[in-house]
């Protein structure tokens, strides 16, 4: 018995110090994640204790009377992101279908490179382009005619403005397209090849194969890709800040100026004085980061399951 113990002790492998060391270093990313939430929560303290849950549902934003509510920013963030998703979804799926099409390698290579470059362009460059090129174009060719004809629908009513919720949504559409199409491409690629081949062997056309076989099989993953793109849209800051008009109100029309959580922080944080004002902005940051983290985790779980469950 004693001998056996001794033998086992002697056989015990030396602890893998390399593994422990690298494991410790790799804690940096989770630590940063937790630290961001904790630090923002602490610093937002004065605003959280002053306004409580009311902060999320009131719409006054008055630095003079130190009365703050997050509703206009939550509204602007949700509306611009939702419009961007609606506009980007058909285009993103189309791109993903082209990118996963067997054959047509030349087209696929060119489109793939183009989408990657689209993702590489800095946010602020989209911002300056949107401000000087896209906003005037949309104003003349989309906002004015639409509000003239369909203004009786409240959300399209005038008077339209160049910097508006709608302009910001269009910029967001362009900016989330790479995420949406790249992740959709990955989940469509994970659909077993046999499905496509048997469908074609049965005489289905290209469109029938895609619409009735491939897309239904990839549906959960494409939903995940959409949610991931939503996460990007919610947190996008600079380009949106430059074209949304920066007005802390809840406008009836999408052609009116608005504000988002990220852009109010970008614009006002360096000028915020006193104790409550910066704390309120930090609380907006906390709300933003908690929402995007939740959305991202949900999306990652969806995409991962879609990409790995079927072989």
């Amino acid at each position, binding site marked *: 018995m004693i001998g056996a113990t001794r033998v086992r002790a002697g056989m015990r492998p030396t602890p893998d110090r390399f593994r422990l060391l690298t494991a410790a270093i*790799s804690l940096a990313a989770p630590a940063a994640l937790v630290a961001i939430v904790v630090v923002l929560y602490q610093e937002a303290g004065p605003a959280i204790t002053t306004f409580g849950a009311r902060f999320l549902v009131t719409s006054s934003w008055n630095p003079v009377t130190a009365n703050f509510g997050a509703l206009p920013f939550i509204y602007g963030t949700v509306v611009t992101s939702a419009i961007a998703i609606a506009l980007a979804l058909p285009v993103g799926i189309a791109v993903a279908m082209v990118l996963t099409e067997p054959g047509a390698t030349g087209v696929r290579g060119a489109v793939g490179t183009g989408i990657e470059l689209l993702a590489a362009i800095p946010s602020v460059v989209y911002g300056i382009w949107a401000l000087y090129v896209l906003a005037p174009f949309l104003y003349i060719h989309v906002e004015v005619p639409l509000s003239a004809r369909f203004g009786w629908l409240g959300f399209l009513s005038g008077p339209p403005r160049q910097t508006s919720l709608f302009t910001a949504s269009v910029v967001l559409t362009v900016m989330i397209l790479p995420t949406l199409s790249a992740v959709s491409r990955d989940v469509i690629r994970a659909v077993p090849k046999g499905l496509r081949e048997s469908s074609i062997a049965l005489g289905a056309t290209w469109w029938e194969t895609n619409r009735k076989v491939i897309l239904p099989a990839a549906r959960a993953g494409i939903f995940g890709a959409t949610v991931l793109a939503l996460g990007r849209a919610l947190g996008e800051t600079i380009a949106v800040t430059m074209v949304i008009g920066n007005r802390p109100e809840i406008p009836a029309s999408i052609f009116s100026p608005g504000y988002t959580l990220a852009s109010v922080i970008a614009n006002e944080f360096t000028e915020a004085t006193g104790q409550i004002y910066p704390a309120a902005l930090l609380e907006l940051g906390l709300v933003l980061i908690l929402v995007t983290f939740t959305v991202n985790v949900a999306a990652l779980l969806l995409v991962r399951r879609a990409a790995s469950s079927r072989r």
Partner: protein
Amino acid sequence: MIRALNQWRRFKNTAALSAIYALTGIALVPLALVLWYTIARGFPAASHLDFYLNVERPVGIPGAGVAHAIAGTGIMVGLASLLAIPVGVVSGVHLAEYAAGRLAGWVRLAADVLVGAPSIAIGLFGYVLLVAPQHHFSGFAGAAALAVLMLPVVIRTTEGAVALIPSSLRESGLALGLPRWRVALQLVLPAAAPGVITGALLAMARAAGETAPLLFTGFGNRFLNLDPSQPMSALPLIVFHDALTPYAALQEQAWGAALVLVALVLLINLASRWVLRRQIRLAGQL
């Protein structure tokens, strides 16, 4: 009857195919437009040598430049790389070499969530942690914020590159009696080097283009400053601030800075693609 049905199906197929390709074309229109306008409107400012040698001047005085912003971007991205790349590479090696561990799953999830974290929130984080205690903005704070942004990109691309290396290489190293750390650092990592470098370059390109994390950390500076303990300018900050001014000269300067920024970012991207192609060829040989 059947022929009519088949014709209808063929017609639907052609229509759908054209629609898909049309939508794909639409997706690439913004890329062409952004590149074209950035070049066309940025060229007048960026074609002067002064633009790269001088710093900002009061509106109306010619010869203004963005040398201070180029220096600031270089210094802050450089410092951020020194911080993020070693930590990210080691983390990525850990994820690939001990892929099944429970910790690896959490680190992977954290990195993926951090990639999608709003950059403005990372700026706030940097402000609270490094600017507020010191009572002034600094290049160091900007670099730290950019490092948080780069870290998850480096981790995930390193993991991907290391995981590509066939396990026969690992096994032959272990069979020769090499300890685990030498196999990982001296055998696997060099074989994966091109992929790791690609990831690092992409992360640097991303950091160079970010504005939001620098607003409350690096803050900006009208003068040439090479000392990271002081506020520093950066190319994206110039674009952001100058584009929103009513002065034509400053707007032109913003477009010029945007052109320099796009050229820089696309150049890094192209370089990384070139490195990556070598990686794929190398992995094929192993």
